[in-house]
């Protein structure tokens, strides 16, 4: 039996919350109970109980959802997987099994210590596997090894049939292949409750990596230099970054507001063989910025996701650019991350080409403008490198991640503490995003959005943004306009005909 925490339980006030304190919008929107599931059978029993009682289930693994998809469940029940135990079965065979309630940091430790392998997943230690993998799951090894969901071989999932009965399924390419594909990238909370991901094989974890970065001074920055920095960065990923020897290079350029004084980029690198014997790729990359007046070392990360910073024990590398060699496992789990809570809002864009001058000017304008009464620190535009092994076109058909042509992925982030700042913060980010996608690259029919086309590939469902609901074409922003969304609607009708699993941006049937 799951552990049921109701409103009378002293644990309720703690467990009802999201990490993002902005959510839900109203106290009355919180779920009425939390079901802490320790096993898959607990989960099936709790889910059946919830459905039979006419309640709505939502599912929480790590609690990192960027919108209110889990915690906005008035009168409903949250299935919480944070206590879910590993339960290898004979049926698993030699497969690796990941339970969705497990945190990414624990998965890295477990897979490495047991098998020497890893998943190419995200940088925040405490992000839960369930939402991360079902929405794609990418991180600093993704240019080298692809998305985590690309490696999934089978999924254990509980669905609710037309008559309200909970059905346990193991889906893969031979069994319910349509549902299997939908579970690989369409995002959580759509079709059922995933209780395990299974992998026939996983990539070997690198032995070591180097970390480094450069930063730039906002106080002496000019628009021309900012444009040069941004287009230099983007040009690399559009050209040289497509060569396989660079796939082990992953970079995040964190463009914080000018009031933070500095912005810059951090990177992690390893050679395709998982060593750092040849650092010429990194040196070549950093040399590109020498004309932009850089300072060595990445600035302090502004958000809760970043490549971890060097530790005293790290080994400095010799060469032109200061960088540190680290054991991969230390580098991967050392930074932790994601434990904090506060108020936050996010947006995203897949980019197929380098920044245009107009785009760079727009970013400069917003990152150097002040807003009366609003503290500008905490606004960050993270420009992640992308592509590499991710961009295998056949994977767009095998998975539900259709974005397989992008070279960068943008994450617009805003972090703050006080509820009275909500309106100003949300408006600033929304205006910035709308302005950026009002230029000549944007089809007038889809203005204010990075609609999939020549320049953009839409948005990332694991960085959901409810502002996009204002556009009738929001599903195409996340799932493209080449047939994936109708496919997912068909899966939805077939496996969840009563729409038991739903949230603001779930697949509408």
């Amino acid at each position, binding site marked *: 039996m799951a552990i049921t925490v109701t409103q009378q339980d002293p644990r309720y006030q703690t467990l009802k919350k999201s990490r993002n304190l902005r959510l839900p919008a109203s106290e009355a929107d919180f779920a009425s109970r939390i079901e802490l599931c320790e096993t898959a059978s607990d989960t099936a029993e709790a889910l059946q109980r919830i459905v039979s009682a006419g309640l709505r289930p939502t599912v929480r693994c790590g609690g990192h959802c960027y919108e209110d998809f889990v915690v906005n469940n008035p*009168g*409903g029940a949250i299935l919480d997987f944070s206590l879910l135990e590993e339960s290898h079965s004979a049926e698993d065979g030699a497969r690796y099994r990941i339970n969705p309630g497990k945190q990414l940091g624990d998965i890295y430790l477990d897979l490495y210590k047991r098998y020497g392998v890893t998943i190419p997943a995200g940088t925040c230690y405490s992000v839960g596997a369930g939402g991360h993998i079902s929405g794609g799951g990418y991180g600093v090894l993704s240019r080298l090894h692809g998305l985590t969901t690309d490696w999934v071989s089978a999924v254990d999932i509980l669905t609710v049939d*037309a008559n309200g009965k909970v059905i346990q399924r193991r889906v893969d390419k031979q069994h319910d292949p349509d549902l299997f594909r939908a579970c690989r990238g369409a995002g959580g909370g759509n079709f059922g409750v995933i209780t395990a991901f299974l992998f026939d094989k996983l990539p070997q974890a690198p032995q070591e990596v180097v970390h480094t970065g450069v930063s730039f001074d906002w106080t002496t920055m000019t628009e021309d230099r900012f444009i040069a920095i941004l287009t230099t960065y983007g040009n690399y990923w559009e050209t040289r970054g497509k060569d396989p020897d660079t796939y082990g290079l992953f970079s995040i350029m964190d463009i914080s507001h000018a009031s933070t004084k500095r912005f810059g980029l951090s990177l992690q690198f390893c050679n395709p063989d998982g060593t750092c014997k040849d650092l010429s790729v990194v040196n070549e990359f950093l040399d590109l910025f020498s004309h932009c007046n850089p300072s060595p070392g990445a600035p302090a990360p502004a958000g809760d996701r970043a490549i971890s910073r060097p530790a005293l024990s790290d080994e400095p590398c010799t060469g032109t650019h200061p960088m540190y060699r680290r054991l991969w496992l230390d580098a991967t789990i050392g930074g932790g991350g994601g434990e904090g809570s506060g108020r936050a809002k996010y947006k995203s864009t897949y980019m197929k080409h380098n920044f245009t001058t107009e785009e760079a000017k727009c970013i400069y304008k917003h990152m150097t403008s002040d807003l009366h009464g609003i503290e500008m620190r905490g606004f960050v535009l993270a420009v992640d490198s992308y592509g590499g092994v991710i961009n295998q076109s056949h994977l767009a058909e095998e998975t539900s991640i259709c974005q397989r042509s992008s070279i960068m992925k943008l994450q617009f982030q805003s972090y703050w503490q006080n509820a009275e700042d909500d309106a100003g913060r949300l408006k600033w980010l929304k205006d910035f995003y709308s302005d950026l996608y009002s230029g000549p690259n944007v089809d007038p029919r889809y203005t204010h959005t990075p609609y999939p086309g020549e320049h953009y590939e839409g948005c990332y469902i694991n960085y959901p943004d409810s502002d996009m609901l204002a556009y009738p074409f929001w599903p195409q922003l996340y799932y493209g306009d080449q047939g994936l969304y109708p496919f997912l609607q068909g899966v939805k009708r077939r496996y969840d005909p*009563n729409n*038991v699993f*739903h949230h*603001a941006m779930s697949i509408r049937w």
Partner: protein
Amino acid sequence: MKRDTPWSRRAFMQGIGYVSGIGLLNKIAPVNKMPEAAHSCMAPKTGFAYVGSTDEVGTSGIHVFEIRGDHWKWKQSIPSRSPVSLLLHPNQQSLYVVNEVDEHEGLPRGTVEAYRINAHDGTLALINRQPLSLSGINPRHATVSPDGNYLVVAIHGGGAYNVLPIGPDGALQRVSQIMKEVGAGTHPVYQASAHPHTVVFDAKGQYLLATDAGCDRINLFTFQNGRMMRTRQTLSQPVSGPGHLAMHPSGKLFYVSNTLDGSIDCYRCSDEREIRHEQRIATHAKTSADEAQHIVLSSSGRNLYVASDEGISVWEIDPITGKLSAIQQWSMKNRSLRTLILSPDQEHLLAADSSRHELLSIPIHAENGKLGAPSIVANTIPSTSLAVKYI
């Protein structure tokens, strides 16, 4: 996806007109006329009528008429998205509107609206609009508890019921309970999931009866302290699609018109809240999966009226068994009566003809429940819902 369309007062006024007299209908409707004396000595009824309508291009609103006997005078029109069901608060001071929409503020959910009724001229003023629960799309029907404290909405598209408390000023408060339904029937298109169609309180407000067209089911819910609890479920004939439901004044019988086969079912509800099927009537009416034949019970419990494209059939109810016997087929060619209610004084049926865009008043013979000659009381754009109060 249904979206707001700009409501045009001019467009409405072009379509609306006032018509009195029954000349045209006398020719096409061979009905038993009421004895003139039965009504001529009585003062004309006065009150207000509220008509929800949606025209061919999706413009929708609520239209207020002042009633003076068979003369309805237009008073007001206000925009309202797809007002599929109108219902009065028991105190007659508020009107509630169910909006059959699938999106509100970008989210998949319908809405309900509360309007204050001006006691002097009957006009409406919006009190508030409340969104239904997430996924609560395309609601079709609602009921107000007899104590006036709660509105319960049957959400056809989203497969759920919502309970909304009603404030002292008639305002609708946010949804306080969501009852998610699951289920399916055997029709591959119309019964892939649950589709709650109609929900009705018993006279004491202690339980709710509800039909589910998606899974051929009659649901009985206990209602206590503003919360509904599943108590009993009864399956109807497969592929029948239970739709409109009318509760007998005795509280022991109820009647259901079915969407998919056009039949009428009679059920008995015991003191133990057990539901037993008593009778099935095949009406041969044209059926629509979107809408069942409207049914109305006389307050005496003697007669059931069933509206269809062919007209209105009048049925006598056996006081012991509850079974139906046909006593009149009131035919109307080229008409489509989609909305049918009983006038507050129980002396007329009021109907909306969605083909000719007319509102009809049809007298009921006090002795046998048969229908007399109708009057066209108003012309309007296509009407989907109707509520009337007398003063």
